[in-house]
């Protein structure tokens, strides 16, 4: 207590700025009663000398003392902090800290010191930071006084502070500044008047003459005043302002805001104004008015709006119908049904849409009739048939089916499908055998969406008996239903059992279905049908194999490509083989290239060989590069081979930089295609710009756990970091994922997603054992293993900054394995790494190999 009194006394004696040396004197007053809850002289000196870039330890200690302090202690701390502000030697960084603290705990004793800073160009903002919300009447005086003394930006800052404080005493001075020749000062004064509000500020704004470019800001401030008035007991004044702005302003957004003010102030009495706004030719205002139709509550308002519907021009009717739909009040349904008979198409469309929201089962017939017509009205009516939510709609639709004509029946069946009315499946199976082809087709479409396993035998039987023209629809329905059955092998059973006894056309249909579904049992059946005695059946089977969803029929296709008696089948099978080879799979890339080699050897014609080269181009592997290279000289295939050569070279340029550069240089000399040469040149430049960042990586992932987020995944063990690591699948990272940043592995582009992790692995050959620096950047977290040992981890959310993490590691002589784990929280996902000497110099003699 003694110490605090002495500090207080000292404060009274301090009149003006005191030098830094005196600070210690002030704090010395406390010696002998050392109290850790108050800043020591050293701490205060430390604060005064604090510069950006230094440790904040001294600052943090005082900040913590402030948090712990009693009210009396706070005043003592405040006094010490004010001494820092008074000291001419205190740094800007120190003053910034002090003002942040005073903002949190300052009292009226701070006002004079802070007020003195208001006119200082560097410190004015810091002063306002602390001053603006201090609960002292002196603050208002200080700011108003500064207002007269300042100009330019500093004046604007003070105006903003006055506005934020809602200082009504400042209104006359601010009113004078509205007409300032400096536009920015004028704009700030206008905004401040709006914030302050009240009748005097409103009057000042009402009388203000502002240039056109400030009219929106003026209107905004005027609206702010009006918005505050009802709470201050001046609702009629507010209405006057809204009315003036609504009637006299040309800015649509301001008129909308004024209309909103009127609706809020007047409620149901605003109905006529809203109706008038609906009739304007400004669609944005119309739409806003419609919004307010929805906001005025009560059935009386519904009745008023619905009653006015037929008397409005058609454009306004359209908007109002939308608003009535949003009100969701079914009492408007009769008037809306009336509008659905309008001579104006746009009105009819809007009415059909509104019926979707507020209609009942009695609306079904009118909607179905309209939906059976044509054009946009039919689309709207059709969508509303789906949307109708009242009781009894679905049974009404089923009932109507019996007496509807063909067109209306089509619409009603579609509505049942859209409404997902599964109880209607038996009815739909019945109509799928109707005498009308249109009805049959629509029913099959509906069944494709709704039917389940139980309806499958009936559907397969329909397919077997279908007319040729309807086979497509029936096949589609069977495939759709089968795909919804989880057990891949069981789902084809009804199809397989029908295959045995079906006639030729039906067999062909069933084979196409099996081809779309895939699976082992299906494959066996289709493979044996490819050797059927009937030409049509063989044809369907070959086409089914060629379009298979995975590569499982590859061998069968190759056999057919070589030995099928029919040339067309040989070509189809070969093309199918090339197609399935290119589908996504886990097989190693060199095996894929070997499959392509088999294909090219089986091909007689250049067309299929070109297809093979197009496939090879997508394999990022050295064997693919060699493959493309071997066709560079072949005249008929040269263009495709060159394109593939470049594409593969770019993709493997990380792991095989030397081979890639050689390939790209070759293209520059042998290729006639200018664009391809330019791509090659770009690739060479990127490889050079990459410097010594590692570009040869294998990648494994993404890995995630259902319940874990990115920061937890860094410490979650996935297969690549397990000792055996056998489960992990690795693939080569295509280099140059971002040509502008060739040193970066862009995982977002390669994999994407969030809350997951991926692993990057490479091998580094060092000519000797050496201590080196691993420089890393990662977005987000990173964990690093070198030869199986964890050498670094940083569990962070951050963007990649090259070399942000620097880790000293030991490379052994010979090959070393480097493994990175990169986590992804969200946004970008990337990483980069390189080895440097411990002093940051470039290391010579390292070799990188991505291959396992």
């Amino acid at each position, binding site marked *: 207590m003694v110490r605090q009194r002495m500090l207080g006394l000292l404060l009274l004696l301090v009149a003006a700025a005191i030098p830094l040396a005196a600070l210690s004197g002030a704090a010395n007053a406390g010696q002998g009663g050392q109290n850790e809850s108050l800043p020591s002289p050293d701490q205060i000196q430390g604060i005064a000398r604090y510069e950006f870039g230094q440790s904040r330890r001294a600052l943090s200690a005082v900040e913590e003392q402030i948090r712990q302090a009693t009210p009396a202690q706070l005043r003592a701390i405040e006094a010490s902090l004010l001494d820092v502000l008074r000291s001419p030697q205190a740094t800007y960084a120190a003053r910034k800290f002090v003002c942040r603290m005073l903002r949190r705990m300052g009292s009226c004793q701070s006002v004079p010191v802070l007020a003195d800073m208001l006119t200082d160009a560097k410190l004015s903002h810091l002063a306002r930071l602390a001053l603006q919300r201090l609960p002292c009447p002196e603050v208002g005086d200080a700011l108003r006084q500064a207002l007269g003394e300042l100009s330019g930006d500093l004046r604007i800052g003070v105006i*903003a502070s006055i506005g934020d404080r809602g200082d009504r005493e400042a209104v006359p001075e601010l009113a004078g500044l509205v007409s300032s020749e400096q536009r920015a000062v004028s704009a700030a004064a206008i905004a401040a008047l709006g914030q302050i509000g009240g009748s005097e500020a409103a009057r000042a704004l009402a009388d203000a003459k502002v240039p056109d470019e400030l009219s929106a800001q003026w209107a905004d401030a005027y609206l*702010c005043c009006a918005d505050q008035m009802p709470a201050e007991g001046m609702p009629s004044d507010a209405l006057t302002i809204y009315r003036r702005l609504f009637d006299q302003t040309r800015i649509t957004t301001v008129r*909308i805001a004024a209309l909103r003010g009127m609706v809020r102030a007047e409620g149901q009495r605003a109905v006529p104004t809203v109706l008038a706004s609906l009739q304007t030719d400004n*669609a944005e205002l119309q739409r806003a008015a419609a919004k307010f139709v929805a906001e005025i509550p009560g059935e009386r308002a519904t009745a008023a709006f619905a009653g006015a519907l037929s008397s409005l021009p058609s454009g306004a009717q359209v908007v109002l119908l939308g608003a009535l739909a949003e009100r969701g009040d079914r009492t408007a349904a009769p008037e809306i049904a009336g509008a659905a008979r309008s001579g104006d198409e746009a009105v009819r469309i809007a009415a059909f849409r509104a019926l979707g929201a507020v209609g009942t089962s009695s609306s079904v017939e009118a909607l179905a009739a309209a939906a059976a017509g044509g054009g946009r009205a039919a689309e709207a009516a059709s969508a509303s048939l789906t949307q109708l939510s009242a009781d009894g709609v679905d049974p009404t639709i089923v009932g109507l089916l019996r007496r509807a004509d063909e067109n209306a029946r089509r619409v009603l069946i579609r509505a049942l499908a859209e409404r997902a009315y599964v109880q209607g499946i038996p009815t739909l199976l019945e109509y799928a055998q109707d005498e009308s082809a249109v009805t049959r087709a629509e029913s099959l479409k509906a069944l494709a969406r709704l039917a389940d396993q139980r309806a499958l035998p009936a559907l397969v039987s329909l397919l077997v008996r279908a007319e040729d023209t309807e086979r497509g629809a029936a096949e589609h329905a069977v495939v759709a239903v089968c795909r919804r059955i989880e057990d891949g092998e069981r789902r084809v059973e009804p199809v397989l059992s029908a295959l045995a006894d079906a006639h030729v056309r039906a067999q062909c249909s069933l084979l196409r279905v099996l081809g779309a579904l895939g699976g082992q049992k299906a494959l066996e059946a289709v493979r044996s049908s490819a050797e059927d005695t009937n030409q049509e059946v063989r044809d369907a089977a070959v086409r089914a194999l060629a379009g298979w969803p995975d590569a499982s029929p590859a061998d069968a296709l190759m056999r057919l490509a070589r030995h099928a008696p029919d040339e067309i089948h040989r070509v189809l099978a070969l093309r199918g083989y090339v197609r399935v080879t290119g589908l996504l799979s886990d097989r190693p890339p060199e095996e894929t290239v070997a499959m392509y080699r088999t294909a090219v050897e089986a091909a007689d014609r250049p067309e299929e060989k070109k297809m093979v080269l197009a496939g090879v181009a997508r394999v990022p592997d050295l064997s693919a590069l060699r493959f493309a290279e071997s066709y560079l000289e072949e005249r008929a295939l040269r263009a495709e081979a060159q394109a593939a050569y470049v594409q593969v070279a770019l993709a493997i340029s990380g792991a095989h930089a030397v081979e890639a550069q050689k390939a790209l240089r070759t293209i520059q000399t042998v290729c006639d295609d200018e664009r391809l040469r330019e791509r090659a040149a770009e690739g060479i430049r990127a490889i050079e710009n990459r410097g010594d960042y590692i570009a040869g990586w294998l990648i494994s992932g993404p890995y995630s756990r259902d319940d874990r987020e990115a920061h937890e995944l860094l410490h979650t063990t996935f297969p690549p970091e397990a000792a055996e690591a056998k489960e992990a699948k690795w693939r080569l990272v295509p280099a140059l994922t971002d040509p502008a940043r060739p040193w970066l592995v862009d995982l977002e582009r390669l994999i994407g997603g969030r809350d997951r992790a991926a692993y990057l692995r490479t091998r580094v050959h060092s000519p000797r054992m050496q201590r080196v620096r691993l420089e890393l950047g990662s977005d987000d977290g990173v964990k690093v293993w070198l030869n199986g040992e964890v050498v670094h981890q940083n569990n962070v959310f951050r963007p990649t900054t090259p070399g942000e993490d620097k880790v000293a590691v030991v490379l052994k002589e010979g090959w070393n394995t480097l493994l990175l784990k990169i986590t992804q929280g969200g946004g970008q996902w990337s990483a980069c790494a390189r080895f440097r000497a411990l002093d940051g110099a470039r290391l010579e003699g390292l070799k990188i190999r991505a291959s396992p």
Partner: protein
Amino acid sequence: MSANDKGITRRSFLTGAAAAAVGAPYVITSAALGNAMRPPASDRIVMGAIGVGGMGTGNMRGFLARSDVQFVAVCDVDKSHRDRAKSIVDQTYSNKDCEAYLDFRELIARADLDAVCISLPDHWHALAAVAAAKSGLDIYGEKPLARSIREGRAICEAVQRYGRVWQTGSQQRSGRQFRRACELVRNGRIGKVHKVEVGLPTGPSTGPEPVMPIPDGLDWDFWLGPAPWAPYTPKRCHWNWRWIMDYSGGQLTDWGGHHIDIAHWGLGLEHTGPVEIEGRGHYPEEGLWNTPTDYKFTCKYANGLTMVVANNRQLDQGTRWYGENGRLYVRRGSLDAEPKSVLNEVIGPDEIKLYESRDHKQNFLDCIKSRELTVAPVEIAHRSISVALLGEIAMLVGRRIRWDPQKEEIVGDPSAAALLGRPYREPWHL
């Protein structure tokens, strides 16, 4: 967008300007007329992106992928960001038409825009959002809504006054699992809830960072904008700003906009707030970053409910409601309950069904056309982040604060109340 389309944007259609332009000699290109995959220009929503760093570029890509959006402008105070964003847009449309701006006010002043996507550091949110709303633009704004409660209220007022559509980038609201969890809680499946826990990430720290030269192409003074002046260092700027209180509130405000929002959604407290807040934060003592690493605060609501918010060393990350008949826990990728049977509960036709959005960005675009409220509207975003901002204040002053959620005022503590707003560095003002 090609020059020829410019006469017939959606906006000019709506305000009737297109009708006035009839007769002017312009050619309607196929891009303007649209095709089977793409609606015509007059139906497309014309957008600009303000702030195109990591998050902003991601957001922009999300919108660019949609056929009913036409991006025409990007803005960033860092030239490398805006050049990259422009090239992404130009590549998408195979032209060079995207305009790149340094100053967001110039972008907002374009007459052809319908909407903007704002992905700026938090200290810029209010200035950009209020200006965009006043200009009659619809806004997709990144969370947290604002750096302070007063700024959040100013955004709400501007958006509501001018009838703008607002979507907050709190995409968990469009996640099926979160909606399901909230519907279960709302419909009483774990009984009356007395407590909810919200776990958020732990804050990072760094060392003292040396002052560095400002990189070429970065307008550092503009980047600082309304915040107090400070010299450049990379760890103060892109991405890392969120660990410095001049610009952000750290993990608490970065993630509070997600999990506190979900806690409120499940309890129907989205239009109110706590009445008492008390807690402690641990702040890094030495380095540049000064937002709390560990933190924990407790909020009391008027209905007796308690909400505890803490970092994930103290609470599981996500939201956990405690009811008289069980508990329910939700986070990204996980929904769990005690008893487990709660998870199989069916919500009946007459029970509370929460707003369903399956695609956060599409929900925004749909609402631009329908003028309906989005799944994460501005008022709700404000109330969600207010809890985090009140927690921040309570921890900074180190004492319990009382809050009037109706008037949005701290009661009986003027020093704490001073922290509800932030005086802007001149010449910036709202």
